[in-house]
Each structure stands twice: as C-alpha cells, then as structure tokens.
C-alpha cells in the first residue's frame, strides 16, 4: 500500500532523514518506533506532503506521491493525526469534524459524522462546544475523529497516547485495533514501544534518520538490542 525508498529530507540544510525505506501492506498495523529526535515526525510530515523530500521515492496505492501536494494526498486517503492534536481551537467540535471531510463530498459527510460520533459518544455530548475548552483526552479523540472524517485508507497516528492517563492509553490502543478492524491500514508512531508492538503486525525502529531494525512485532519484542534500549529489560 505504501512504499518508501531512499527517502531523504530535512529543514534548511540540516539532513534529518538519511535514506528511509519502509513498506506497508494493506490492512496492517505497523509501528514506527524510535526515541525523540530520530526523525519520525519529519518522516510522516514528508509522507503527508507537509515538507518536500530531497530525494527518494514515495508511492501510495501504486501512485508516485513524492511531489504531490498535501491536499491531493488527503484526496488519496493518506490521513495523518499529528502529535499535539493540532485541532482548531476556535471552532466547535462539529466544525472541527466537518472540516475533516473538507476534501470529501457533502453526501459522505453526515454518514462519516455519524460513524465518528458512534465511535466517540463523548464528542456527541460536546458537539457545540469550542474545541479549546475540552480536556486533553477529548481533544485527542477529536483529532482522531477529524482524521476518520476524511475516510482514511492509511491512517498515520503520531503519538496518540502522549499525555493521556494510563486508563485512556489502554482505551486508545483498543480503539486503534478497532479502526484497523474497520478496514484502515495504520501506521502508528509511538514511544510506547511495548504497547504498540502488542497490537502491531510489524514494526520499524528508526535511529538517526534511517531504519535500523525491522521485523514482525514478535521478533522485535524478542530482540535483545531493542529490549535493552527501549523496553528497559
């Protein structure tokens, strides 16, 4: 579904991605792991067309999207829920969700909205409230709900569990499995290595702007290097 080869990108003249290779198959949950500052967020920003890559190639559903603009990438169904939510604080919950379907037909909207509100009953209660007035957990739900409104085929979730209480973190991971069952392919960018690998099919470990380690979730969980550096075993 997604093929990335030799992707290089950065900011100004600083190279952050030094040749990333990743492939994601349809209906998978794939974890992208790595500590702070290794380039995970830069990588997915490049996937979404927020920053232009320097070299390398990205194909999505067989189509070359290396030079495609952010809006057209949304059209194709590659949707990102960014770290830090980036919801629209001055808009109501409903307006935030409706804007999630900005690039979709009006007909699809009410159906999408209903599906999101089924998934997040809490958002239905707050539908007329300004997004800024909600708690962190609710804002995270809104961010994911807004992503769902765009009918994602590949949903990229950047640190969805960040800043959530342990109970909410559990719920968040259950939700991700649920979204995957609904047919979405998921790229999960997480620092919570253990929980992410438990629900993922495969994982990639990024270090210094390149993929250092890859394998099935089980292989990675059993990998002694990974256990030492990330799982604290």
């Amino acid at each position, binding site marked *: 579904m997604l093929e990335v080869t030799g992707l290089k990108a950065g900011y100004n003249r600083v190279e952050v991605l030094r040749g990333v290779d990743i492939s994601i198959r349809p209906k998978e949950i794939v974890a992208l792991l790595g500590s702070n500052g290794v380039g995970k967020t830069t990588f997915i920003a490049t996937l*979404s067309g*927020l920053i232009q890559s320097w070299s390398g190639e990205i194909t999505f559903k067989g189509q070359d999207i290396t030079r495609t*603009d*952010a*809006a057209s*990438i*949304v*059209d194709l169904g590659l*949707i*990102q*829920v*960014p770290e830090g*939510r*980036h*919801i*629209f*604080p*001055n*808009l109501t919950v409903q*307006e935030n969700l*409706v*804007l*999630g379907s*900005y*690039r979709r037909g009006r007909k699809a909207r009410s159906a999408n909205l209903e599906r999101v509100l089924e998934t997040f009953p809490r958002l239905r209660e707050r539908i007329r409230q300004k997004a800024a007035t909600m708690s962190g957990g609710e804002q995270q739900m809104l961010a994911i709900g*807004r992503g769902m409104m*765009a009918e994602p085929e590949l949903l990229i979730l950047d640190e969805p569990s960040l800043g959530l209480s342990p109970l909410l973190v559990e719920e968040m991971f259950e939700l991700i499995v649920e979204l995957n069952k609904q047919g979405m392919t998921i790229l999960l960018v997480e620092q919570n290595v253990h929980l992410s690998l438990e629900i993922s099919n495969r994982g990639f470990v990024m270090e210094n702007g390149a993929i250092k380690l890859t394998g099935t979730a089980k292989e990675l969980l059993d990998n002694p290097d990974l256990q030492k550096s990330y799982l604290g075993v």
Partner: protein
Amino acid sequence: MINFSILLPSILNGLTTGALYALVALGLTLIYGVLHIINFAHGALLMVAMYLVYFLYKLFGLDPYLALLVVPAAMFVIGYVLQRTIIGNASHGRDENILLVTLGLSIVIENLALFFFASDTQVVDTPYAFDVVELFGAFLPVPKVIAFVGALLTALALWLLMGWTDLGRAIRALARERKGARLVGINVDHIFAMSFGIGIGVLGIAACLLLPTYYVYPQVGHGFVLIAFTIVVLGGMGSFIGALLGGFIIGVVEAVGGLVLGESLGQIGIFVIFILVLLFRPQGLLGHRA
C-alpha cells in the same frame, strides 16, 4: 445649548457614516484575523475601487449602485491575484515582510494614481445625491441611509459566510492552526488569497456606497484607513461584530464631536477613544487577550 432636536440628527448621521467606516474596517479585520497582518495597502485599494466606480460612471454612465454588480467582484479578483502573486511570494512567509510588502504596494498604487489621474478630486453626479428622507424628525441623505443598510447587509453576509460555509470554516481554521489545516487538505495559499480577496472585495462595496456622497482623489484612502484601523483596535482585532460596533461608535463620536467642538475638531474624539482603549482595554471591546 444642545438640545435633542439637534443631537438626534447628528447621531443618526454619525451612524450612517460609521457604517461606511465599518465596511472599510471589516475587510481590514478579516485580513488581520487570517493573515495576522495589518494590510497597509487597504487605503490605496479603497482608492482604486473608488476610481473604478468613478470611471464606470464617467465612461459608461453606470450608476454607482449598479456598479455594485461589478466593482466588488473586480476588487475581489485584484485582491486574490495580489496575494497569490506579489504579497504571498515577496513575503517568504514572514509576517513582518508581508507588512512591508503591503506598505510598498500602497506607495506604488497611490503614485500610479497620481501619475495617471492627477490629484484633482472627482465626483459622481447622481440625481439622488441630495435627496433626503425623514426619520424621527431628522432629515438624512438617502445615499447615506442606503450605505447604512448596505453595510449591515454586508456584515450579515460576511458573518454567514464565515459561520456556515466550508470556505468560512477553512478561513477560521487556518487563522489559528496552519498545520491542522494542511492535514485536512486545506490549500493554504488559496485560502489566504480568498481571505485577502474577500477583504478587498468588501472595499468594492464600500466604494460603491461611498461615491454618491463622497469624492475620490489619489490619497482618499488615508483618512478612511486611519479611522478603520482605530475601529479594528476598538472593536477587537479580527472581530466582525467588533468592527461593526466600533464603526458606529466612531461615526457617532465624530458627528457629535463635530457638533460640540465644530466640524474640523470632530475627529479629536476618535483619537481620544483610541488612546483610552489602548490604555484600558488593549484587546478591544470584543477582542480576546493575546
């Protein structure tokens, strides 16, 4: 000394003038709200719109009110193209650069107008320019009443546009959260240009409503923009209702001030208010604290 029968017409007159100020301020506040810049070219573009109305009348005999069908649309296109070509590109995404680019634009536009149209004041002679209508015992010029209604309708239309359309939601979303906007597929350059275009299009409406009672010359924008800027600060940066309310307050203060202090000193009140607002409520009447 001043009784109600003099005060009322003065207040009503102030409200009608204030409505026109509000129109100029509405575009300014929209552009500020989204692009986070004070558009220094606002006055120059108002002047361009007024000359458009004037020449449509002069060359084709088009009534200023009929020009409402043409001039706002033309100004919208001018605004859209300016943002998409000159302002957006020359600013390299930095707010302080946009400020300077619009300032430069205003100087270029005004001097072009001076060069081509000379500094003579031009008027549009309409048969209804001196018609009056009686309201609560006060006599008001018909064009000013029309301008008042037109300003209210424009504010209402803007409010509906911003609140109930995809475009409006996208504009408001982009104003506060650029990354989130890009991730839902909002085309940033296009929406910036749409906002600028709408703000400038409103100037086209203002020009059509102004000319039956006003005149045009290359620096005509200065006075209006100074007042519009005061209104935007008074009402709260980026607030539509604030701009409308601020416009009415400024219009009435100017008119009543003129009545009490004499015509030429009427504007003193505006700047007294401006300074008081900056001192005691810097976020404006309906604005939010930064």
